[in-house]
C-alpha cells in the first residue's frame, strides 16, 4: 500500500465531502464571527410593547427615553394589542404604565410604578428591565429635584419664572439623552505575570479550537463505513499495519484543520504571537485525532456518531476552559479536564504551557488506535444482525 497516495487521496476525498467541509466552514465562520463581535454579548433588539395608560405627560416621556435605547424597539399600543403581540412572539415583553404614573412621580414616589411582563420563551430580560427601571428613576429624580428646588428657593423667598422652568425641563431631556458620563471598565487579570506581557490568543482561536473536535469526529466517519470493514482485511494482507492505516487516513483531517488554525490565527493575531502557539495547537490536533478515532470506534455507526459528536464537543469546550474559565465550584470538572487535549491548549493560550499536554495527546492517539483496532476485529468476527422485517 502507498501511504503517501493514500494520504493525498484521503485529503482530496475530505475536500470533496460537502457535509464535513460545511462543518469546517461553520467552525471557521463561527470563530471569526465570535472574534469580530468581540466580548460584547450581542443582544440584538428586543421588541417592547408599551401600554401607556398614564393620564399625565410622564408616560409619553418614558416612551421617549426608552426609544433612545439601542437594544429596544418600543411600540406604544393598547393592552389587547400588546397581549396579542406577546402571544404571537412578536414582542418579547410588555410594560404597562398605570394611569396614575405621572401623579405618583410628582409625589416623588417610584415604587411599583410599572408592571413588566417578559415572555417565558425570551432570553436576556435584563436588556429590558434595566433600561425601564433607569428611565423611571430618571423621571423620578427630575420631579424630586424640581420639587426640592422649589422648596429651596421658597425658603429664601425666591422663585423660578415659568419660562425658566420650561427651559430647565428641555435641558433635562437633553442631559438624559446625552448618555452616561462615567465609564466603567472591566479589567481581566492575566493568569501569570509573563503571560501578561504576551499577546493573548484571540477569541477566534479559542472558539475555533472549541468547535473543531466536531469536525475531527465526523471526518473520521470513514472508520464506520461498511466498505472499510472489509477493506482492512485486504490492507492487512499487504503487510500495511492497522495503526499506520488509521494514522494515514487521519492525517488528511489533521492537515486541513492545521491549515484552518493558521488562517484563523493569522487573520486575528500577529504572526509572531501566533507562531508561539503553534506547538500547542499541533499537540491539540494530535489529541483530537485520537479522540475522534476513539469516539468512532465506540459509536459503531454514523447515526450514533452524529448524536455523540456535538455533545462531546460542547462538553469538551466547556470543561477545557477554552470558551470560559471553569468557575470555582466546578473543581471536580477542572481536575477531570486535565485528560482533555483542550486543557493543554487552554494553558498554552494562557501562556502557561503544561507538561501534560504531550502525554495527553499521546495517550489519546494510543487509545484511538487501540479502540479502532479492537473495533475492526470485533466487526470482522461478529455476525450480521438479521433485520426482523426482511
Amino acid at each position, binding site marked *: 500500500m502507498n501511504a503517501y497516495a493514500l494520504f493525498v487521496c484521503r485529503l482530496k476525498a475530505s475536500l470533496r465531502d460537502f457535509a464535513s467541509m460545511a462543518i469546517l466552514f461553520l467552525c471557521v465562520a463561527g470563530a471569526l464571527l465570535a472574534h469580530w463581535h468581540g466580548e460584547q454579548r450581542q443582544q440584538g433588539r428586543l421588541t417592547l410593547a408599551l401600554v401607556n395608560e398614564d393620564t399625565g405627560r410622564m408616560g409619553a416621556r418614558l416612551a421617549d427615553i426608552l426609544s433612545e435605547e439601542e437594544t429596544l424597539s418600543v411600540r406604544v399600543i393598547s393592552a389587547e394589542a400588546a397581549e396579542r403581540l406577546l402571544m404571537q412572539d412578536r414582542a418579547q415583553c410588555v410594560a404597562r404604565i398605570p394611569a396614575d404614573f405621572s401623579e405618583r412621580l410628582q409625589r416623588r414616589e417610584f415604587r411599583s410604578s410599572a408592571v413588566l411582563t417578559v415572555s417565558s420563551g425570551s432570553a436576556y430580560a435584563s436588556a429590558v428591565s434595566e433600561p425601564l427601571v433607569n428611565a423611571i428613576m430618571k423621571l423620578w429624580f427630575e420631579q424630586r429635584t424640581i420639587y426640592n428646588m422649589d422648596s429651596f428657593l421658597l425658603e429664601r423667598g425666591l422663585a423660578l419664572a415659568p419660562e425658566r422652568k420650561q427651559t430647565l425641563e428641555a435641558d433635562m431631556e437633553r442631559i438624559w439623552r446625552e448618555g452616561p458620563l462615567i465609564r466603567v*471598565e472591566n479589567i481581566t487579570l492575566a493568569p501569570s505575570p509573563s503571560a501578561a506581557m504576551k499577546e493573548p490568543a484571540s477569541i477566534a482561536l479559542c472558539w475555533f479550537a472549541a468547535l473543531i473536535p466536531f469536525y475531527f469526529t465526523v471526518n473520521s466517519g470513514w472508520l464506520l463505513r461498511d466498505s472499510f470493514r472489509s477493506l482492512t482485511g485486504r490492507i492487512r494482507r499487504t503487510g500495511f499495519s492497522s495503526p499506520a492505516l488509521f494514522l494515514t487516513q487521519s492525517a488528511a483531517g489533521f492537515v486541513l484543520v492545521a491549515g484552518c488554525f493558521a488562517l484563523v490565527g493569522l487573520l486575528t493575531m500577529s504572526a509572531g504571537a501566533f507562531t508561539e502557539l503553534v506547538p500547542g495547537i499541533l499537540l491539540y490536533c494530535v489529541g483530537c485525532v485520537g479522540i475522534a478515532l476513539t469516539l468512532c470506534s465506540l459509536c459503531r455507526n454514523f447515526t450514533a456518531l452524529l448524536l455523540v459528536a456535538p455533545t462531546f464537543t460542547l462538553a469538551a469546550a466547556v470543561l477545557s476552559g477554552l470558551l470560559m474559565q471553569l468557575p470555582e465550584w466546578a473543581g471536580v470538572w477542572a481536575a477531570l479536564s486535565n485528560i482533555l487535549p483542550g486543557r493543554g491548549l487552554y494553558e498554552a493560550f494562557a501562556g502557561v504551557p503544561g507538561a501534560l499536554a504531550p502525554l495527553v495527546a499521546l495517550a489519546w492517539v494510543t487509545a484511538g488506535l487501540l479502540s479502532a483496532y479492537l473495533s475492526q476485529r470485533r466487526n470482522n468476527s461478529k455476525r450480521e444482525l438479521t433485520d*426482523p422485517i426482511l
Partner: protein
Amino acid sequence: MSLWRWIALDLKRLFRGRALILATLITPLVGLMVFASVVAPMLLEEKRIIIPYAICNEDSSEPVRQFVRLLTNAESLKSLTAVYPVKDMQTGYELLASGNVSLLVHVPADFYTDISTGGNPAMYIIASEAHSFEQSIVRITVDSLLSIVGQSQNVLQRFAGEAIDAGADEAAANDWIGGQMSGGIEEYMHRRAALSQGGILSAYSEYFPVQYYLCALFSIFAALAMLPALYLSSADMGGPVVKRGLLASRPAASKYYLGRLISGAALILLALALLIPIGAVTEEADALLANMADTVWLALAPALILTALSFSALALFLGALINRPRLALWCGFFIVLTMAALSGALVAEGALPALLAEIGRWTPLKSAMSLLANSLFSLDSARYAQDTLRLAAMFIALALAGYKLVLRKGAAL
C-alpha cells in the same frame, strides 16, 4: 399483518441497535449535566449567592466617599454582596490573589473632579477570568447606577445654576447639590422597587435565563433524537423494504407509516422523559411542589407528545424524500442546526433579521421550545394554546406530506 404487529415490529427494528439507542439517550443527559453542573449552579442558588468584592477609593471628595459608604453599608445589598473597603490597590490585589474577594473595584483619585469639570471619569472592575460572570453583573449594575449619578450631577448643577441666577447663595446651592445627590443615591439603592422587586441588582435569571436555555436544550436534543428514525426510514425507502414490495399496497404502507411514526415518537419521548425530571430540579422545591398540582402535568404531557410526534413526522418526511441514508442523516442534522439558529437557541434573540426570525417562528423547534417553557415553568394559557395549534399544524402538514411520499414510493415498484 395487523397494525399492532407493525408497531411492535418497528419498535424492535428501531431499538435493536444498542449503541445507537444508548447514544440517543445518554448524550442529552451528558449535555444537561455539563450545563447544570457548570453553568447553572450559580444561578440556581441566586438567593444565597454572595459576591464578595473589595473597593479601593482613592478619591477624597465627600460625595464619592459617601457613595462608597452607601455601597458598603446599604441594607438592600447585604444579602447579595459582601464589601471590603481597602486602603490601597496593593491590599486589594492581595485579597484578589488569595481568593477572599471575587472582584476589586477601583475608584481613582480625582474621580469627582473629573465628573464636575466634564472630564473623562472612569471606574475599574478588576477580576480574574474565573469571575467574569460576576464582573459582568456588577459592571452592568454599577454602569447604570453611575450613568444616573453622572447625569444627575449635571441636572443638579443645571438647577443650582438657575437657583444662583435667581439670587440664591452659591455655597448654599452647592450644599443643596450634595444633599440631593446623597438622598438620590440612597433611594437609588432600592431602584428595583419601581418594578415591585427588591434591591439594586436585577434577578440573576434576567442576565442568564436558565429556564430559557434548558428548554432550548430539551428541544434540540428532542430534534436530534429523530435522527435514528430518519436514517432507518431513508434506508427503507431506498432499500429492500420497498424493493421487495412490502409497501406496495395502501394498507401495508399506511401501517408502515403509522408504525414508524409511533416508534420514532417513542424514542424522542424517551429522551425527553429522561431530561425533564433532571431539568425540573432547577425550580426551587417549594415552587415546584406548588406547580406539581394538576395544571403542569395536564399541560406538559400533551406538549411532550406533540413535540415527539412532530419531530417523528419530520424524520419520516425527510427519510421518504431522501433515499440515501447518509445524505438524509446529514440533511436532518443541518436542518436541526438551522432550526436551532433561527429559533434563538444558538443566536441571541433579537440579533436575527426580522425575516429570519419570522421563519424561525414557523419551525417545530421554536414552537417546541415555547411550549415546553410554558408547560414547565410559567403557564400562560393563551400562549400555550397558540403554540399547541402552531405545532399541531406543522405536525399535520409534515405527516400528510410524509405519508403521501411513502405511498408513492411503495407503489412505484
